[in-house]
């Protein structure tokens, strides 16, 4: 069966585009008015920063087919450059307003992308991935060696409240930093979207699909990759610069492999095949790093599991799931599916609850053994030393898994049915 499209497309295209961009801008403006606490405002700021970083990463991964393991090099070095610029500005050595500091970070990121990208983009595929990893390790090793620039273990700190306040904007209150970030986010997202609609952006897609063929239509694939890499480095640097202004401190971990891995993981989770996928990924990234890490010590384990299942069952990420269901909705078939979805969700939650109880008990035994075997998980008292707790958790998990399998079969059946219906419907409409 030849599916012509697996996802939904907006029509008429231009109207939908204006509506979506206006909504996005509105969302950026309104968010801090809805979520007013200090924690939420700083989280919103981080989300904006992560959006720019993940989108710039996806320029390589989703649009260029370049799996980079070292994107944090460009966000991180951009952050350092921006921090030094901020410090130079506050000591009077450099005359730039704080508003433009992220742009300096962008130029910094771009500079290093010009430098390192020349080496990394000479090759594609596995070799590219290896070289980016090597460059990442190299830069991280250097960050511990050159403490004048990287500030050693303590990092480099600065103060964003400096110079003349312009129209009352001092960047003292976090909400002002949020609006600075939001403005940069809107402009950068728009620019990166625009990039996908230019000749270079399209040829980059062609290079992703079939680099050899591109060479036979007159383009130098190395050059296409290199230019795109530089542009991605610029936006990555802006994200780094915004982070400097937000946190007022930069430490060596921002260029580390962990950060690079996070960009990869969350860009993928959000969905690398659609432009807006990384935006979802960025929101999830901040939620996971700030909230999930508070909630449980085993958060990285849960994150790994989610990533694993996503790669196995929905390689297009959350964005592709959304678009597939929008397509169903467009044909009026989403209603038939929602029972199956609820079934999947409930059974998955049961299985997760059982598994999570056991994971939490293991973590408790390993980390908090001194506090005794008692722990509280989701309102239930568990005893990590008692067979009852283990047996109960395992029972819940297995029951959940069994029910999930049943729900899954029903779901697959329903899904296939709707797809067949949609195919027929498309044929029917074509025949009209």
């Amino acid at each position, binding site marked *: 069966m030849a599916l012509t499209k697996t996802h939904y497309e907006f029509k008429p295209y231009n109207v939908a585009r204006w509506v979506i961009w206006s909504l996005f801008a509105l969302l950026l403006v309104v968010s801090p008015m809805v979520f007013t606490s200090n924690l939420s405002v700083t989280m919103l700021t981080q989300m904006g920063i992560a959006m720019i970083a993940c989108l710039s990463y996806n320029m390589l991964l989703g649009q260029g087919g370049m799996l980079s393991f070292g994107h944090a090099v460009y966000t991180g070095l951009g952050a350092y450059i921006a921090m030094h610029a901020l410090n130079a500005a506050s000591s009077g050595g450099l005359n730039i307003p704080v508003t433009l500091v992220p742009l300096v970070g962008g130029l910094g990121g771009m500079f290093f992308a010009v430098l390192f990208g020349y080496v990394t983009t000479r090759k594609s595929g596995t070799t590219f991935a290896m070289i980016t990893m090597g460059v990442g390790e190299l830069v991280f090793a250097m960050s511990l060696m050159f403490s004048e620039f990287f500030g050693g273990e303590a990092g480099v700190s600065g103060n964003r409240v400096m110079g003349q306040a312009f129209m009352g904007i001092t960047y003292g209150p976090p909400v002002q930093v949020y609006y600075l970030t939001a403005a940069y986010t809107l402009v950068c997202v728009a620019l990166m979207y625009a990039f996908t609609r230019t*000749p270079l952006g399209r*040829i980059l897609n*062609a290079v992703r699909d079939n680099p050899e*063929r*591109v060479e*036979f*239509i007159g*383009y*130098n694939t190395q050059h296409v990759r290199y230019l795109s890499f530089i542009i991605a480095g610029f936006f990555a640097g802006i994200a780094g610069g915004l982070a400097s202004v937000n946190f007022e401190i930069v430490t060596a971990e921002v260029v580390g492999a962990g950060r690079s891995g996070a960009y990869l993981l969350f860009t993928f989770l959000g969905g690398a095949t659609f432009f807006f996928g990384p935006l979802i990924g960025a929101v999830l990234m901040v939620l996971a790093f700030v909230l999930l890490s508070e909630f449980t010590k085993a958060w990285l384990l849960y994150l790994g599991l989610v990533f694993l299942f996503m790669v196995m069952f929905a390689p297009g990420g959350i964005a592709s799931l959304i678009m597939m269901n929008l397509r169903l909705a467009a044909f009026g078939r989403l209603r038939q599916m929602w029972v199956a979805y609820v079934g999947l969700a409930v059974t998955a939650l049961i299985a997760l609850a059982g598994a999570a109880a056991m994971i939490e008990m293991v973590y408790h035994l390993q980390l908090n053994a001194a506090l005794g075997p008692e722990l509280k998980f989701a309102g239930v008292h568990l005893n990590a030393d008692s067979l009852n707790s283990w047996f109960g958790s395992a029972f819940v998990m297995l029951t959940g898994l069994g029910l999930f399998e049943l729900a899954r079969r029903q779901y697959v059946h329903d899904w296939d049915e709707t797809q067949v219906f949609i195919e027929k419907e498309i044929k029917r409409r074509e025949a009209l």
Partner: protein
Amino acid sequence: MIALELKDVRKNFGKTEIIRGVNLAVQSGERVGIIGPNGAGKSTLFNLISGRLEPSSGEIWLGDNRIDHKKPFEINRLGLSRSFQITNIFPKLSVFENLRCAVLWKLGYKYTFFKFLADLDDANDAADKLMHEIRLDKKRDVLAMNLTYAEQRALEIGITIAGGANVILLDEPTAGMSKSETKRFIQLIREVTEGKTLLTVEHDMGVVFGLADKIAVVVYGEVIAFDTPEAVRANAKVQEAYLGSAVAESQAHG
């Protein structure tokens, strides 16, 4: 005027000599069919000309430019384009995007990222025109990976001719097609390569003798004959080396 010339071109893979001194001069506007048994080096010859491989020795000239040891994209910019035996398109781009990508360099847009594709009227018109020529206008927004095999072959030809190259190399354009598809496809190739220099590797004898002005016979890495179809048919060396086996076979069956 000579459009493409090979002077004593040789290619070794390790100690094995695959191309053993090929000399060939193709006049501008000629249609040349290249035939030969399996493993004779026909595809290797195309790879050498188009820059996919570098010759071990010898010279290749495209008009006044020497093109051996140049990169594929440099050769393409000088006006030589090729298709592939195994379909080589951009699977996750639509038919229209495939063709638009292929016209961009020729129209001078190069690596620009300060213009929107939607505003490039000449590129869009060229891609549209091409899409009609290869009869894929009804499949405009279908991803290339979802086309039928014959449609993918047509798209392959479309991408090849899109850049407006004067010298076109087609590597077994009808490979894997049914008889009726082949017939229609040959007609299509005739139309879209009108007035251009065409070299095509082909297994189907009927196709070669119908399409080509001249035929080059490649056997064991050498061109043993290069002449009009009638002369090649009558050539004793060719009959012995290439057609001989087919004749013997048909007699055995007859």
